[in-house]
């Protein structure tokens, strides 16, 4: 019966028999029954319910063999019902030391299956100790299955299982040193490679190890593995030892520990790539690609570049290709692209499209100069025209249009290609377009008169398909236009063509022909109508988008994403930019760091590691304002509070007429708003703190966004009045109910929020205006308590409103005669404050000026004798005080 099933026929008889066999008393029959049931039925099958009771009896029964059978079956196909009814029994079995190991190992895996089905089964708190106990086992069978169980439990929640960590390390050590392993488990001289692999996998789930002793042991073990593995004659031993080795490499990468170990790893990988065995080469390349993502071992990897290129000659080049793509950067781009191009001519057809796409992207990203880029693309089209998607040639045309000096070069090159006998259609399209636009630039060169160019293009006309003909027609029209004074013969030729196509079936062609003909009659006015194409706006390359999309399937992308998800700590560690290590000696002009302003205002992320990080940001439950790379400007605006005393770490050299440190000032977040995490199940998208900062400088933008709602703000400010409009947009298809927005105004602002509707209909946007009046100067901030209900989720967020001090500033020019007397008349605190900023990078003057401008301070040039100083002035308005002049000097 099994055989029949395997052959693919539907077995619809005999199920009843199989289930009843399970209850048979004799072992063989029982065994057969179980196996058949396991193979034929899956967990949703109705028949299984019949079996639950019998199975339960078997499990609690004393006969070990029966127990095993039952456990095995449950382990393989157990469903939810099984989980609920059988879990306690299975747990008991697992833990009782009177059971033989045989049974216990099955019980462990059975529990795993049940856990996956119904996570509540395993009570997390109590279980951690028991896991630790289990891991003390000597018998390797039980250990193997316990390790698998551990992996699953830890992947969900690694903090609870800290105590298991040293045990894992000890196990690994035991295995690696080959102590105390029964002969049975030794596989060609290597003790249980699978268990080693599993243990290392489990270790990867934990972030870095604190305990120094454990750490040292682990490193020793890893070191031994790394050094001790050689290429041996026996294939199987080879494979097994390398399996352990690769896993160890992965662990080392994760631990991100010592530089020395990393370079050892890379050296090893380099050796592997040269090995003849294809498997090892493949894995070596794959691991190198992974390494690229995790660390910056780029230079070391580049040394192996030559080797990698030769491995392109392999029958299987997928990995080599990915690796080259990853490690390409400005220095070696030229070589790599040229290699790729060469390879393209001999490549397998399936690979060509991907190959050409990657080559195009690399060429674009790292082109040393643009004419080279154009060359490369044209070569690409020439060699592999079929596989060039339209995006590629659109892109090259875009480039040529945007760069004037490139145009004649491109036109000449394109003409050369056209002169070849066999030209691919895409090439014709590109050439037609470029020649149409720019052939007049070539007009002076020999052999390039409009007539000849027309001749060349016209030759190709019969060979092309209907998609290309419109482009050709446009090209003719433009050529004609550019020949002033008009050449009669050329003109009549072209008109004849237009006439011919006026009755073409294809609507597009017909339309073009008719229109162009009519236009040509107009004569001189033609110039204006058929003017040159304007430049394209800069857009993110659709090629890169395409590559990212198409890579979604490959192992590389998912490995990255998986690593990013599995090892959150690692991702954060890696992409952390070091906080500004500033000038060693405080420069007398205390420079304000501008590093973060541009990156906050433009939040585009291009690389995949950044994507991973922003995924992390989206899934972090804390709006993490302490993220060191994020907030240099935040430092300026005041540390967001979970701890900071206001302004302590923030110092800026400012002057103010009021009590404050005027200008862009510390929003004293801690005063009113707890910026810590909200008890929300709905996670905000993007970093709220960053958005707030961005909005402090701009007047409109998104204040808050989460999967259900988007809140935007638009503001206008005049003297001490401000008017904000809140745009509440419901992103979902269901209405949001119980919408409430409460203002918590601080003492210095008077705020009036008009009525917020109770329900926001789906996919609609509601506008709520808000009036703000500044009563007196203060660093406090207004908070909007916003809550809504979606389904059964109640969501509540407290959002700071960007109605901050600098919004009430109005720039005003102050002439020199007024400035300095005022300056000198203010003698000291609290009216005049001066501080030195330390630890930030020096910033060029124009950027500084921009920053001050965006804070609504007007720069008064030339007032200060020292050219490194910037002077700005503004007026601060509030209701209680009259207009106050603020002067800032850096």
């Amino acid at each position, binding site marked *: 019966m099994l055989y029949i099933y395997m052959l693919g026929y539907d077995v619809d008889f005999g199920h009843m028999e199989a289930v009843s066999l399970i209850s048979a008393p004799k072992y063989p029959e029982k065994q057969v029954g179980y196996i058949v049931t396991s193979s034929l039925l899956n967990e949703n099958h109705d028949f299984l319910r019949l079996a639950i009771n019998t199975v339960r009896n078997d499990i609690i029964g004393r006969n070990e063999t029966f127990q095993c059978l039952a456990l095995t079956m449950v382990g393989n196909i157990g469903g939810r019902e099984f989980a609920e009814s059988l879990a306690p029994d299975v747990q008991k079995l697992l833990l009782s030391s009177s059971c033989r190991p045989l049974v216990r190992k099955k019980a462990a895996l059975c529990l795993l299956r049940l856990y996956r089905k119904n996570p509540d089964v395993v009570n997390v708190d109590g279980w951690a100790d028991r896991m630790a106990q289990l891991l003390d086992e000597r018998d390797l069978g039980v250990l193997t299955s316990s390790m698998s169980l551990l992996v699953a439990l830890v992947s969900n929640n690694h903090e609870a299982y800290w105590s298991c960590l040293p045990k894992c390390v000890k196990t690994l050590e035991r295995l690696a040193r080959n102590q105390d392993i029964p002969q049975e488990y030794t596989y060609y001289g290597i003790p249980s490679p699978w268990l080693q692999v599993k243990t290392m996998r489990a270790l990867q789930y934990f972030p870095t190890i604190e305990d120094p002793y454990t750490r040292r042991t682990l490193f020793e073990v890893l070191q031994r593995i790394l050094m001790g593995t050689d290429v041996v004659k026996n294939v199987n031993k080879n494979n097994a030892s390398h399996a352990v080795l*690769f896993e160890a490499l992965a662990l080392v990468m994760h631990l991100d520990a010592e530089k020395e170990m990393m370079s050892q790893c890379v050296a090893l990988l380099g050796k592997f790539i040269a090995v003849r065995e294809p498997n090892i080469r493949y894995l070596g390349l794959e691991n190198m690609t992974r390494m690229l993502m995790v660390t910056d071992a780029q230079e070391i990897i580049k040394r192996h570049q030559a080797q990698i290129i030769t491995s392109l000659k392999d029958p299987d080049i997928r990995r080599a290709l990915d690796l080259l793509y990853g490690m390409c950067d400005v220095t070696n781009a030229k070589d790599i692209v040229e290699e790729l191009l060469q390879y393209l001519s001999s490549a397998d057809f399936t690979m060509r499209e991907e190959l050409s796409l990657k080559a195009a992207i690399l060429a674009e990203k790292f082109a040393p100069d643009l004419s080279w880029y154009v060359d490369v693309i044209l070569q690409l089209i020439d060699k592999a025209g079929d596989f060039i998607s339209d995006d590629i040639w659109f892109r090259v045309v875009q480039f040529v249009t945007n760069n004037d000096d490139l145009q004649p070069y491109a036109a000449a090159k394109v003409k050369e290609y056209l002169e070849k006998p066999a030209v691919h259609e895409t090439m014709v399209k590109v050439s037609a377009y470029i020649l149409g636009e720019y052939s007049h630039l070539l007009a002076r060169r020999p052999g390039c008169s409009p007539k000849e160019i027309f001749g060349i293009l016209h030759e190709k006309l019969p060979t092309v398909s209907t998609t290309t003909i419109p482009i050709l027609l446009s090209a003719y029209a433009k050529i004609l236009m550019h020949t002033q004074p008009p050449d009669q013969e050329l003109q009549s030729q072209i008109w004849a063509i237009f006439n011919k196509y006026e009755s073409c079936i294809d609507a597009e062609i017909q339309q073009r022909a008719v229109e162009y003909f009519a236009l040509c009659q107009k004569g001189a006015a033609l110039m204006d109508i058929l003017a040159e194409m304007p430049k394209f706006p800069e857009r993110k390359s659709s090629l890169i988008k395409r590559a990212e999309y198409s890579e979604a399937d490959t192992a590389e992308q998912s490995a990255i994403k998986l690593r990013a998800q599995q090892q959150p700590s690692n991702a954060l560690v890696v992409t952390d930019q070091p906080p500004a290590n500033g000038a060693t000696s405080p420069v007398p002009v205390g420079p304000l760091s501008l590093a973060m302003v541009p990156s906050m205002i433009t939040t585009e992320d291009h690389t995949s590691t950044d994507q991973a990080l922003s995924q992390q940001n989206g899934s972090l439950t804390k709006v993490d304002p302490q993220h060191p790379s994020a907030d240099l400007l935040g430092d300026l605006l005041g540390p967001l509070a979970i701890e900071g005393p206001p302004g302590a770490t923030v110092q800026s050299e400012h002057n103010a007429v009021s009590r404050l440190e005027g200008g862009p000032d510390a929003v004293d977040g801690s005063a009113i708003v707890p910026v810590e995490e909200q008890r929300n199940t709905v996670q905000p998208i993007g970093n709220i703190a960053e958005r707030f900062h961005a909005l402090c400088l701009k007047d409109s933008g998104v204040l808050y966004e989460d999967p259900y709602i988007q809140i935007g703000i638009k503001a206008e400010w005049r003297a001490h009045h401000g008017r904000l409009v809140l745009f509440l947009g419901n992103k979902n298809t269901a209405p949001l109910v119980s919408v409430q927005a409460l203002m918590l105004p601080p003492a210095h602002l008077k705020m009036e929020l008009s009525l917020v509707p109770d329900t926001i209909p789906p996919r609609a946007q509601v506008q709520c205006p808000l009036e703000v009046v500044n009563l007196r100067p203060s660093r406090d901030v207004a908070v909007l308590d916003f809550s809504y209900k979606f389904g059964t989720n109640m969501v509540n967020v407290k959002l700071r409103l960007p109605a901050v001090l600098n919004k009430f500033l109005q720039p005003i020019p102050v002439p020199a005669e007024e400035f300095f007397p005022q300056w000198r008349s203010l003698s000291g605190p609290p009216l005049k404050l001066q501080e030195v900023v330390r630890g930030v990078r020096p910033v060029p003057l124009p950027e500084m000026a921009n920053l001050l401008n965006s804070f609504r301070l007007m720069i008064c040039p030339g007032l200060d004798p020292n050219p490194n100083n910037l002077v700005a002035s503004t007026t601060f308005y509030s209701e209680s005080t009259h207009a106050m002049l603020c002067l800032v000097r850096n």
Partner: protein
Amino acid sequence: CSFVEHRNYKIVYRRYASLFFLVGVDNDENELAILEFIHLLVETMDRHFGNVVRFFTMDCFSNPFKCELDIMFHLEKAHFMLEEMVMNGCIVETSKANILTPVQLLEKT
């Protein structure tokens, strides 16, 4: 090369003369370990049946017929063995003695 990728799975295969063994695994599984697991399976079957494949070499030259025949005629035993070794997608037992004991028990009764 013994690994193939497809969507987000990998296939690890090994060829023994006319027998192909294929294993489908997740993307983050260690491929060489699976390769060795295939070999372990073959060795276990060899020990049980007497002459499934020759130990050392990967290309079996003697008695190619008998190799597959053993598996064909005793398919359920092949299943039993595999059942002992793998459970719910994880490798549970790698010691040949432990694996073969229940199977031999079955044949006795």
